[in-house]
């Protein structure tokens, strides 16, 4: 039985990078969707949630076409910045960002929407602007929602298969993630190796979710 750690390490590297970026863009995006009076927010809200219902292959297909060097965007990125998105780690990150976006944004959005408006208005009446209110009043109080977003985005990125296969392919050390390695090994009838990867993913997912529920209970207890 032959196996290496490369696909597992790559998977966690991807999940970490994607979760960190999503956290940074997820908060302002969720805030805008939750509080903006703009009518377009429904369109944005819908777009953010699209990956929840679309087959991963559809998203992967569009990304593949968009970033393919044969077409405009891919060609532009490659000629202007020397950036090749398809079949690269960058491509995996971009695809996962899109695909895990609702898992980060939706819990945070719900946290914002359920937040008592009297607290926000109290802060405004005390002379504080929206920024100060956000980081001193709202964010500390919706920690459980933030934690949910982080854990869900992280766990979902680890578990992604279809979209990353479409855009990343199966290049060892570059785009071969654990989920793809399992598929690969099964196709080659290496059930032992596939089982090894699968077991590691199961254990890690269990630990992450267990810690999440445990911590969430504890965080909520503060109030």
């Amino acid at each position, binding site marked *: 039985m032959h196996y290496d750690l490369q696909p597992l390490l790559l998977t966690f590297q991807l999940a970490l990078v994607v979760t960190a970026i999503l956290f940074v863009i997820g908060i302002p995006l969720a805030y805008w969707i939750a509080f903006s009076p703009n009518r377009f927010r429904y369109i944005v809200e819908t777009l953010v949630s699209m990956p929840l219902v679309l087959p991963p292959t559809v998203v992967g297909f569009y990304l593949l076409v968009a970033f393919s060097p044969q077409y405009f965007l891919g060609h532009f990125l490659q000629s202007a910045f020397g950036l090749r998105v398809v079949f690269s780690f960058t491509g995996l990150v971009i695809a996962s960002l899109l695909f895990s976006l609702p898992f980060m944004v939706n819990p945070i959005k719900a946290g914002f929407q359920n937040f008592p408006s009297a607290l926000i208005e109290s802060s405004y009446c005390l*002379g504080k602007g929206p920024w100060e209110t956000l980081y001193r009043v709202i964010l500390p109080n919706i920690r459980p929602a933030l934690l949910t977003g982080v854990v869900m985005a992280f766990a979902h990125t680890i578990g992604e298969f279809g979209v990353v296969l479409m855009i990343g392919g199966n290049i060892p050390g570059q785009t071969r993630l654990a989920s793809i390695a399992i598929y690969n090994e099964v196709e080659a009838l290496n059930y032992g190796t596939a089982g090894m990867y699968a077991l590691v993913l199961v254990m890690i997912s269990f630990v992450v979710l267990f810690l999440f529920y445990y911590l969430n209970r504890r965080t909520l207890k503060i109030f």
Partner: protein
Amino acid sequence: MIRLRLKRRMHTPQGQEWIDVDLNIDRGEFVALFGKSAAGKTTLLRMLAGLTRPQEGYIEVDGEIWFDSRRKIDLPVQQRRTGFVFQDDGLFPHMTVRRNLEYACGDKADHDMIYEWTAVMGLKGMEDRKPSQLSGGQKRRVALARALLSKPKMMLLDEPLSGLDLHARLDVQDEIIKAWRKTGITTILVSHDLSEVFKMSQKIFVIEQGRITASGSPQDVFINRELSGKFRFTGQIIDIQRDGVVNILTLCVGNHLTKVVAGDEEISGLAVGSRVIVAAKAFNPLILKV
């Protein structure tokens, strides 16, 4: 001097109504907006604070225009600086009492002022507690102190005593009056509680279905001047019971319950919940020290 003339559509259980008010409040006055729920009291207060936008009208405070629909002036909430105390206190649950108070002080926390107000409001020893560890009355007092520490131009109290038990109510009523006497700050209290409004305010605006139907001192508004009784109180009927040929009314006067005998004629048109005046003529009440 606060002048306001405001119009706004509002949704009530009875359908759409217009708030349409025009009133002046003198500087340093303690004013009550009195009326049933959904009469528009809270909306009026929110429009003054800048939390709800009127459809038409203007607000002028001490010569400064806060809102003018024709000139498109709408001063943001943050610059209006109203000490708004919300019905459900609005304390930040993740901050201790001290942090809540410091939050109001701006960039530089004025610790002397915080110390003073915690003492005045009877909050000494509670500075390190979270709001969840406080009683209802204590929470309101923290909210009051916090609003005062933001150095507001006026205090806006939206039913600050709702949901409190009698003891805590009286307690917070006293603290509100104390704070008003100490600062002399214009205070507007929204309430549907007669005894509270009567006890606390100098001037009352009665609001019904978005319009001011009466205004003046509590005496003018609530006590029928035609009556020449020497001894009179306003109260609310809690219970009516028939006993032989008379009726026994249980009344809530101020914060006390009292029983009064009444004939059939007297109680015609009255029901549980009716507001009444209890008066006695040619009557020599006994005064006893308690």
